[in-house]
Structures are given as C-alpha cells and as structure tokens.
C-alpha cells in the first residue's frame, strides 16, 4: 500500500527516473512517437526538483532575500542577453 502522490511530489510507479530510463532506451530501440520526447534539460530539471530540491527550498524560505539576490546574480551570469 503506497500513496499515488509520493513524498517527492512524483507519481508512484511512474517516477521521473523511469522516464529517464525510457528516454535512454528510446535512443537505442525505436519506441514510437513521443513528439520530441522529454528533452534532456527538462528531464534534468525535473530529476533535480523531485529528488534534490528540498535543500534549496529549505534554504530559500529561511533566507529569502539572500536567495533572491543569489538568483538574480546567477541569472546575470548564466542567461546571456
């Protein structure tokens, strides 16, 4: 007996890691039409959000101003205009 919505905010039995596995398999075996598929960047983001982001949010709610400053600073560096 498990919950449908697990503690990682993911679907029990169809977690993002399973999508990753199928995505990798689809590169070798023709699995069918996924209309572009999940995309590696999106997959990475979801794997991070579902499995590792709790630390980031723990920090964010406690140090919101600092987190916002860091976020805008990182955007300036990472997002080129």
């Amino acid at each position: 007996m498990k919950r449908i919505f697990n503690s990682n905010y993911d679907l029990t039995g169809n977690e993002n890691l399973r999508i990753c596995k199928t995505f990798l398999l689809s590169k070798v075996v023709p699995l069918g039409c996924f209309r572009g598929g999940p995309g590696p960047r999106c997959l990475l983001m979801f794997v991070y959000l579902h499995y590792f982001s709790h630390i980031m949010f723990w920090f964010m709610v406690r140090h919101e101003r600092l987190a916002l400053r860091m976020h805008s600073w990182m955007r300036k560096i990472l997002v080129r205009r």
Partner: protein
Amino acid sequence: MGREEYYSLSALVKEGRKRQSGLRVVSFDLFDTLVIRRLHDPDLVKQPVARYIAALAGQAGVRVTAEEVQELRDSIENRHRQETGESFEDQEACYPEFMAELLRTLTGCENTEELLGRVTSFEMGMEQQMIIPRTEIVKWLRELSLAGKRVFVVSDIYLPADHLRTIVKGAGFLDAVEEVVSSADTFLAKASGAAYPFVAEKYGLEKDGWLHVGDNPISDGLRPAEFGIDAMVLKDAAERRRKSIVKRYINYSKGMPFWRGRALQQLMLPHEGENERQPALYREGYGFLAPIIGGFLQHVAERCLEQSVTKIFFLSREGYTFKRFWERAIPSLYPQGGLPEIEYLYVSRMALAGASCAHQGLTQTNASIAFLPKGNRDFRDICRIFKLDLDALVPHLKRFELHPDDCLSAQHSGYDPDVERRFHSMLADEGFQAEVRKQTRDSSRAMIRYFEDAGMFEHQNIALVDIGWLGTIQRFLYEGLEHRKDRPRIYGFLLGATRGVVFPSAADNILEGVIYDKFRFDMAGSTVLYARDLFEEACRAPHPTLNGYTLTEDGYQLEFRQEDDETGRAEQLQDKYFEPLQRGLLDAAQRYGAASAILGYSIWDYKPWLNYLMVSKLAFPRSSEIAKIQHKYHLDDFHGKHKPASKRGTKQLKTLWEYPHYQLKYNPFLRVRLYMRHIYDRICE
C-alpha cells in the same frame, strides 16, 4: 505582540496548539493557509472560464475568442481596481461587478443576470475542483472551534464572502467558522491593514487574545502586528517546492508536447487527505488507465460534436465504465452543453451474431469470424454462436456431405480444406440460408424492439463506443439494422482497433480506433495489444454478459448469461480482484475533467505522454507490476472450449505478460526482444 514565521505546517500547528489556551479569537487566511490549489497560479482557472464565456457568446451569435475574453476581463478588472484605489487604500475588485460588466460588453445586453449566474457557477465549480483543504490546519481549526474560540476566515480576493463561503463549504469546514470575510465586499483589505480594524469593529473583537494565521509576510504578518494582534506566518518550503514542480510541468508543456500529459497527471494528483495509501491496482487505475481512457473519451466527445452525433451508445460490458467515466469527466470539458445524449446499450457478440443473420443469412465472413478464437472448431460452435438449431440444419449438412463434428478451423488437427469448401458451398445455398433466416427472425425482431426502446432510430447520427478490437459488435449490429430505411448513420469508436477481419466500412458505418488503429502506423500505440485483457477486465460491468434477445408477446426480454457455472464464478472472482483498479479509474475521472479543462489540450496533445505510459507500463513493465496487474482468467462463450493440438517442433509464442516471474525478473533482454518481435509483427501484418 508580534509576528513569527514557521517553515512547515506542522511547526505552525504545534506552536498554535501551545498558545491555544490564551486565545479568544483566531482569524485565518484562506488560500495557501487553510486550503491549497492544485495549480501554482490561481489565474489559470480563468482560462477555462474565458473559453466558456466565448462558447456562450458564440451561442448568442457573438464571435469572440477565449483570448479576447481573457484580455477584456483583465482590462475591466484592472480598471475596477484603479477606480477602487481612488476611494480606498487597497486596489480591490469585486467579481460580480466586473464579470457583469464583461458580459454586458460582450453581449450588448443590459440584463445579464442569468448569464452571470451560469458563469459564476462554472468558475466556482472549477475553483472547487482545484482546491484542497489542508488536513492538519483544518483539524486544528476544528479543535479551536470546539474549544469555544471565535474562528474567522479573512481573505483578500475578488470573490465576495458569499462565494468564499461556497468554497469553504466545499472544503468541509464552514460549520467550524463564525464568519467568512472578503475584501471584495468592503474594499478593506489585509494588504493595507484596513481589514483588521473593520473586522474588530463589526464583530466586536478585542485585540487581546486574537491570533491571525496566514502565509503572506505583509498582509498576514506585518499588518496584524501593526494593528496590535499576534500573527503566525506560514512559509511552507514543501508547498513552494510542490508549486515550483507544477509550474514547470505546465510551462514546459507549452513548448514540449511530451510534458502535456504529465502536466495533466500532475494536476489530477490527490493531495493532503485525498492522498491515502492505496493498493497497487488502485494506483494503476488512477495513474495509468485513467489518462488513457480519459483521452479516449475526450476524443470521442470532440468527434461527436464535429459529426453532429446526437446520441452515444456505450456498448456492454466495457461501456459501463466508459459511461461512468464520461459522466464524471466530460461535462467539465463542455460546460456550455451541446454534448450528445448517452445510454448504456446491452449488446454482445453472442447476442448480436444470431440477430444479424435474420435478413442476410449466415455470411462466409461472419462464419470465419466465429473461427478466429482457437476454442471454436466445427459446425456445432457455429450453431452455438449464431443461436442456430442444429437438428433442423442436419439435412442441409447431409446434402453437402458434412457432419456437425467436421473440423472447419485450420488451427485444429483434422482440418481438411475440402470440407471447408463444401461448407462454403452450403453457405451459398438458398435452402440453408432460408432455414438460418427463419431460425434467427425472432431474436432479430426482439433486438429491433429493444433498439427502438433505446431510441436508436430517433437519431440521424449515433456513436457506438466500445473497447475494441475487431469491431465485431458494430459489424453485427449494422448488419442487423441494414434492412431498415430509418437506420441511423453509425460512428464507431474503439479504444484499440486491430481490424483482424476487414470491416464493412460504408458512408453510414464508420469505425475508428482512437488509442490504436491498425490503419495508423503507431508503434507505441500498438503496445495496447500486449495486455488487451487488462483493459477489458478494468472496464467490465458487474453484470453477466448478454446471451440474446428473446421475443415476448408484449415486447422483448434481455437474456443474460447464468452466473452459477464455472465461467460465471470465475468472472465474479475476477471482477472482485479488479475492483480496486476500477475504483482508481473512476476516482480519477472527475479530476481528469477539471485538469483537462484547465489545460485546454486535446488527446493529440496528450498522445506522446500516453504513448510513453503504454510503452513503459505494457511493453517494459516492472516484473512486480505484471505480477500485480496480470489478469488471471478471461474467456467468454464466444471463444468455445476446444483446445487446438500443439504441433511438434513449433514453439508456442508467448506475450510478455505470460512469462513466468523469474524470467521477467532475471532475463535482461526479454522485454527488448519481445518488443522487437511485436514491432516486426505489426509491420508484417
């Protein structure tokens, strides 16, 4: 006096309980405190409302797009806020006022009361679908109420208190609340702090012993503290994480179609008290079958509206679950109405097979359909399926040197092509066909009477919805009605169409496979063939199959199969086993409707995700999933009881779902090998 921040709901409630004894009044913020939304952005609820208004305007002869409606709504709401800001500190707006103006502008009518009622009711319905009470804090609120504390809900929102009360009632704690206060009624909001003195004065509250709980550091933290009351501010890290995930699913899905179905499932997920521990079958019904069946039925609805279909017949027995799913999900997608009538129709291959012979006789194609299942081998099986009296047909058999036990199926030993040729000659014989027509006339008349009762001939265009696979039921039904001039045009929709026998397509007899159709090359969709029985078991109605239609003096009688024999008992056991799967499927139906209405996508948007679901769950399932979901027994009377002798030297081909558990678990290439074979078969068929 002051405000304190809490980083989890349990920490806030724990501290609240400690302070409880010294409190007399507790006011709560509503959204993101007492209740949460499945969505990250409450404005997303406005999109289906805009589509609804555009559809209503269309019915009134005004052509306007949903985007234009949304733009107009935003501009009117903003103007109302600016006007309020001239007289009050807060720039608030009131829903009935700006929505009435929007409807007046769109329709050009001054009296829009009835229309406003419909729009409000729809928007409130959508809001309620998206709102979930937070179990822990609502439990504490109830404790406070029982302890005699005065409990208020105070919210800054454009919905007046009357509308908020509906939401609180839907969330299930209105009885524990003394009053619900909204800034839309007075334009005195918590944001400026004006709401607190207003509430204190109106309800005679003292600052001492008053605690306010909310999630906004300014409105629910700083402002009450400035007013002189205690405040607890919830900064819920877990909730922010959840919203951040939903936000990305929805945003990514705009550019990447693969994520559209996943976004749908994220919005369908149960939260808080809804998210209880469930058995594996329930989870599969909720998380795997529901999006597939929802997508199928959504497509059926779209096509029926396109083709002016006025009545849908869900065919027994899988149609029972389809109909129940439809009733829960599809009306949310078409709030403006116009959907066809729906009815559950008692039919079966066995019941229709005989009735279809009353005018055309027994055709060669229909006889060959009877020999598709391996369990049928001779003329006795033909008689069983088509409800023919063998004794009356024996003279005809003798004329063609046939015996009732002659093997007519190539799948069995003893098959002789010469015997089959004589059998086909008999089918071409008018004397034999006259006897067949005579024997099946009554059941055909009974069937027609039943269909007349069901209103089938009152419509020009009807749809038949079934699970699959050959379209035999639709074939027999169409052939049974072909002699009637007032027969409707039939649009058949199957979850999967394998088209093993050529379907007699005509302008008034159309068949379409939705999730899979052999006529569309779809590798992922074809994986539905891995476990066809699973879909059948999951959707099967809790009543025995129909054996036939019996003509009575005053009409007809539906003749159901007995339930006390071996097959009947096995079916009952099977139904009991799959009950959680069906429960999960139906529990998800309403949430499918609401989530799909919010996203506004069609099945073709969801299809990449559905393809992934089918590939991962049917072609590449975990061994534990097969062990839990695997059907145990599925046969019906159409299949017969003969067993074809296995030929020496030929290896029996098994599907993945038939392999033993140890092979599924420890054979690393089994799934890939079987999948490649499956694709090869699909290409070659």
